[in-house]
């Protein structure tokens, strides 16, 4: 009886999580006439791929998709590349008094700032260096968003490594950089993978910077492209849903691919091994 209740509760939770996704997918496959049928058509409708064809043919959605891929992977790679050494330095180097703590909190405070506060200065700075409407400008903006997160996550993972292992490597002949690349990096890989997936998802879903910093199609990303279907005169539900489904896929793939690391990464350090 108890198990039954447990399963019922779990089922309910799953249904609540999946219902919007189900609705999104069915809308993207329905003709306009079926989209607002009352009572709603749960299953009995004639599927059409018109909306999918439409977003790629009429809307340059392929372009947005490519832009999103470039911006999110680019900013994630830069954030990891800068964040890992920064975290290592903060954890392992000798700092005067508690500077390491102070610097860490300053870094975190950058992340706590609502992004909209930074948008005007960011806009002006990027205009000055002619990076508005460019992928590089967006990559830089998103890196700023992700870097504090990477540093804080990696700080925790590095702190959990036994110091002796790194000291052994130093005495065996490694430089500090060698220790970071050949000892620390392999050992924090699960944590790093989980962190990278978080960064990818944040950058993939990022809307505000993408909307304001790229006014043309050159650097327009998927979320901005989707929002473009809400126009002054109509809301293109079919096209928007189709775009939403396509936008969702990479996130699902990231999460599935990194799931193994996710659990390990998040619980890394919980048990000393």
């Amino acid at each position, binding site marked *: 009886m108890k198990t039954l209740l447990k399963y019922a509760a779990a089922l309910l939770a799953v249904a609540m999580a999946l219902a919007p996704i189900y609705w999104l997918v069915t809308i993207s496959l329905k003709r306009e006439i079926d989209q607002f049928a009352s009572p709603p058509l749960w299953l009995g409708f004639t599927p059409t791929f018109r909306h999918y064809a439409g977003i790629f043919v009429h809307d340059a959605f392929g372009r947005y998709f490519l832009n999103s891929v470039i911006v999110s992977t680019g900013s994630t790679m830069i954030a990891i590349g800068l964040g890992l050494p920064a975290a290592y330095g903060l954890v392992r180097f000798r700092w005067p008094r508690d500077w390491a703590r102070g610097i860490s909190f300053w870094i975190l405070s950058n992340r706590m700032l609502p992004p909209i506060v930074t948008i005007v200065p960011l806009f002006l700075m990027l205009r000055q260096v002619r990076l508005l409407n460019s992928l590089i400008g967006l990559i830089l903006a998103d890196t700023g968003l992700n870097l504090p997160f990477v540093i804080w996550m990696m700080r925790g993972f590095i702190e959990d490594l036994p110091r*002796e*292992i790194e*000291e052994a490597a*130093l*005495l*065996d*002949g490694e430089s500090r950089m060698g220790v970071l690349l050949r000892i620390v990096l392999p050992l924090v890989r699960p944590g790093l993978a989980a962190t990278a997936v978080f960064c990818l998802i944040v950058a993939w879903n990022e809307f505000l910077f993408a909307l304001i910093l790229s006014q043309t199609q050159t650097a327009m990303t998927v979320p901005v492209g989707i929002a473009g279907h809400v126009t002054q005169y109509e809301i293109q539900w079919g096209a928007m849903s189709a775009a939403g489904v396509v936008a969702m896929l990479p996130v699902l793939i990231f999460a599935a691919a990194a799931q193994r690391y996710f659990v390990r990464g998040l619980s890394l350090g919980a048990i000393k091994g």
Partner: protein
Amino acid sequence: MSLQVEHIGKRFGEKEALRGVTLEARDGEFVVLLGPSGCGKSTLLRIVAGLEEADEGSVRLRGRDITHFEPRRRDVAMVFQGYALYPHMTVAANIGFPLRVRHRPAAEISAEVERISARLGLTHLLRNQPRQLSGGERQRVALARAIIRRPQAFLMDEPLSNLDSRLRIDMRAELKHLQHELAVVTLYVTHDQVEAMTLASRIAILKEGRLQQYDTPSEVYRRPANLFVAGFVGSPSMNLLPGVLESGVFLRAGLCVELTAEQLAAVGARREITLGVRPEDIDFSVISHPGWTTARVWVTEDLGNETLIRLAIDDAHVTLRAPAGVRADFDSPAWFRIRRERILFFDSHTTEALR
């Protein structure tokens, strides 16, 4: 001189970890740093390794001043208490790591790994991951990794303390023989005085960051420099009885001992002195002899090959070694005699040995 440590001082904030520590070691010597936890022995080792920087003083290895060298430039190898194996590498990769870092040819690395692992009985484990090994095996891998590149000095930080006691005794003997074979100067940190006595060619005893005595195990045992060393080295430890000197006789409640001329000369005009005597330098009897001191048996411990007897004299205890089979009941009367010529005297105030 192979390794010279001179006037090393180190502070951690308010706390003084080391002060004016000077010692030197000859080629192939096995030097043990001994002391209770927090005495600075590990800090001294880490300063020699380059993992900590001394505030003052210098470290020289084979004539090179390495005080400010990075660890990797010092050409020393270290074995850690927790072994510090690289968890993401196989045993073979762990052992070969120091050579790989030095970009030696792969053929040479695998040949050396073969040779060293055969020497330490690790050949069948080469493909394993460190987490699949037992404590003793991990210890061997750590040793193999340290010796593969023939460093100019070995540094060992309590390498045996994570092993169970039987394995520890075996590894101790093996380590001593290995060190003799390699003939490389070794600095070894431990808080276990038996380990220090058995391994060392010389023992450096530290207390609160200061060097107390630096000498061979037998000298440290027979002629401790002060009360701390006397009490720390030896098991069971030396009996230390504070008392006073009155006209050539050491007096305390329940005990009086006449000093030899030599001892009197050493003690001089001091009045408050402490008598020190090893448990094996006391004779024991259950019947009365003329000139022997009387006491009460507090406890006896039969070790099979000998018996340890603890006597109560007034408010103090005296431990002595008696032959196997000696029996005495709790609280029964007993007699003992301290061998006069083996007694050491210490200044009760400065704690220095008087000789």
